């Protein structure tokens, strides 16, 4: 029988993992919504975020709070994502009629492999940041302050993104472009600029997820592709293009993984995938996706 303390701690752990997945999958869903190209190198932004924080921590001799590295990380990866769209995705999109869809996917896969190999040359082993805050005790519970801080920051970033997309002109332009590219163009929106900004946001979100991940776990240069697969599944589960759906899918996956691993660590991934498949069998359009009517 699981104690109430265990339930609270497992739920927090699941929310944390789900939160990290959500940063990644929300980035993927908005970039897919804009470009209609599934960017298989999206997970590499996360890996590079981890690598950046690790190198930053090493470079400062471990004296620098890794949370503060986010101040540099966010604008840096925004620029990286912006340029990635401008020089690769936009070119691919312009060739969409000429190149097979599979070939577009392969180009992003190739980019992922190149990024991974370059990262591996930089740090050819597992790496992690040996940083942690002292845990806090509330009644019977001992909770990791590092995890709580990360969970709080993930919530802030998600809420901030939500407000940005709802309240700002650029945010509204992003949503409009995701809904209807031509319509947005006719309304005078600079869709190319919006597309680049969206990729900048997506890359920043993934990099932040990577920064949090490397503070919690050891990672390596080749973590990008497996995590991209996970993000793609979450996006499909949540409903293609649905931001709230991605958030929901991420939390379901995170909580399932953590709870199943309490009983048997070897089964955590398998059961999580089984649940995802089950949901898709019941709702093929995803949790919050729209059903496509066949004529």
């Amino acid at each position, binding site marked *: 029988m699981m*104690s109430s*303390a*265990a339930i609270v*701690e*497992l739920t927090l*752990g699941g929310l944390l*993992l789900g939160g990290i997945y959500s940063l990644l999958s929300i980035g993927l869903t908005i970039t897919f919504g804009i470009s209609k190209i599934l960017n298989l190198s999206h997970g590499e932004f996360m890996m590079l975020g981890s690598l950046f924080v690790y190198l930053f921590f090493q470079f400062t001799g*471990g004296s620098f709070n890794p949370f503060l590295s986010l101040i540099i990380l966010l604008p840096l990866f925004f620029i990286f994502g912006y340029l990635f769209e401008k020089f690769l995705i936009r070119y691919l999109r312009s060739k969409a009629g000429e190149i097979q869809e599979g070939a577009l996917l392969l180009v992003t896969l190739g980019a992922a492999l190149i990024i991974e190999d370059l990262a*591996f*040359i930089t740090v*050819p*082993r*597992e790496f*992690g940041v*040996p*940083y*942690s*805050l002292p*845990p806090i*005790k509330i009644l019977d519970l*001992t*909770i*990791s*302050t*590092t*995890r709580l801080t990360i969970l709080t920051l993930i919530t802030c970033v998600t809420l901030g993104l939500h407000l940005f997309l709802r309240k700002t002109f650029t945010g509204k332009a992003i949503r409009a472009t995701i809904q209807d590219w031509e319509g947005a163009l006719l309304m005078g929106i600079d869709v190319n600029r919006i597309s680049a900004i969206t990729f900048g946001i997506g890359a920043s979100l993934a990099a932040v997820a990577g920064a949090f991940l490397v503070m*919690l*776990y*050891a990672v*390596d240069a080749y973590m990008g592709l497996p995590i991209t697969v996970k993000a793609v599944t979450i996006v499909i589960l949540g409903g293609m293009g649905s931001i709230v759906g991605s958030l929901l899918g991420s939390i379901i996956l995170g909580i399932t*993984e*953590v709870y199943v*691993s*309490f*009983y048997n*660590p*070897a089964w955590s991934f398998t059961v999580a995938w089984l649940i995802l498949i089950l949901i898709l069998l019941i709702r093929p359009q995803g949790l919050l996706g729209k059903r496509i009517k066949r004529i």
Partner: protein
Amino acid sequence: MTDTRRTISIAVLLLLIGLFAGSLLSTTIITRPLGVEQINTITVTFTKTVTVQQTPPRTIIIGATVPKTGPFSPVAGLFDKLYIAWQDMVNERGGLYVKQYGTRLPVKVVIYDDESRGETAARLYEKLITEDKVDILLGPYSSVITLAVLDVVAKYRVPMVATSAAAPSIYNRGIKNVFSAIDLLPTWSYNYFEMIKAEGKAKTIAFVIEDDPYGRGVVMGAKPKAEEIGLRIVAEEVFPIGTKDFTAIILKLKAADPDIVFVAALAPAAAAFVKQALEQGLRPREYHVPQLIKAFIEAVGLKNVNYFTGEWFWTEDLPYDGYFGKAFWLEAMSRAGLRNEDYPWAAVHWLALEVVSAAIERAESLNKEDLIEALDSIYIMTISGPTQPGRDYGPFTNVGLIKSFPVQIVDGKFRVIWPPEIRTGQYVYPIPWP
């Protein structure tokens, strides 16, 4: 940089000797393929007289891999430097004596990067045997990688001395050409448990086990030994290789509240577990991490591992000189730029070099069957004490005698805490958590 400087210095020295004394006897340039990093090492061999130039009839070729890249690289990625230091120092002494040739022969170690991957290691060991034509092999780092190369090594019947690989599953297959200087994994923690028994403070223990040959092998011996000395096992949690999140295990351990948390995992996984356990407030009276090495400490943070206990195979206070002498070993470590505190497994790799050297000098020739016979029969003194790599017991063949002993890290310094004759400090129990 040091290698380059040494190479240039030796080259200039050779030139001067060649020009002015005419006594340059032989020069061998050895190139070691090591993935992207290629280092040229110049080995110079002199005979006893300076008037007659004599080329050695042949070179003894020893093959090995090290994990220059991949998860094991922080643990053993620098051991190629130890092998090369040994090679250079042995050659400076004239090489190893081989009776068949009636003289000392220079040694050459051919080293590849196995990327911490079993399949890569298996391919490279086949290359070492079939292309590099090695006379004898040093095993790769870790039991899991050694298991991956066993079939190849057994197929070609090339003698191999394992390094950091003592899982029982390596030695219960009846393979006659694979030897170990150290005892089987299950016996490693015997000294540690003897100390726990003598101290009589801890009453309960929990095992956290990585599901690989190392973790399973350590616990195979540690568990019955713990029960034998009267410790109650309150938890036994096995986790698969590659596990990232340990929340579930940590929660169970918190509920079990053991005196000792024994982490039977290789350094990367042990570090991942301990880091999360500390973050989530798991504070037992003691953490015992056999792999209390630099890679582990750096990943968790030095201040976080204060009073942790681990296991070593060598300390300066051990009264043994070894096959080449203690000074020779210390010089090799110095040349390799390694410290025992950071890389305690370096001593285990040195034991393998000692066994290889003894076997070559004991064998009548470099014939592989003669080398296997020599390995099977030698009983030698190493820096960690006597060993007999050909020892068989029960279903196991060719396992040595050397066991580890417990150490504790206190305020950033290691102290040997058992056995009493080599103890350098008192065992601190329980951990005085801040």
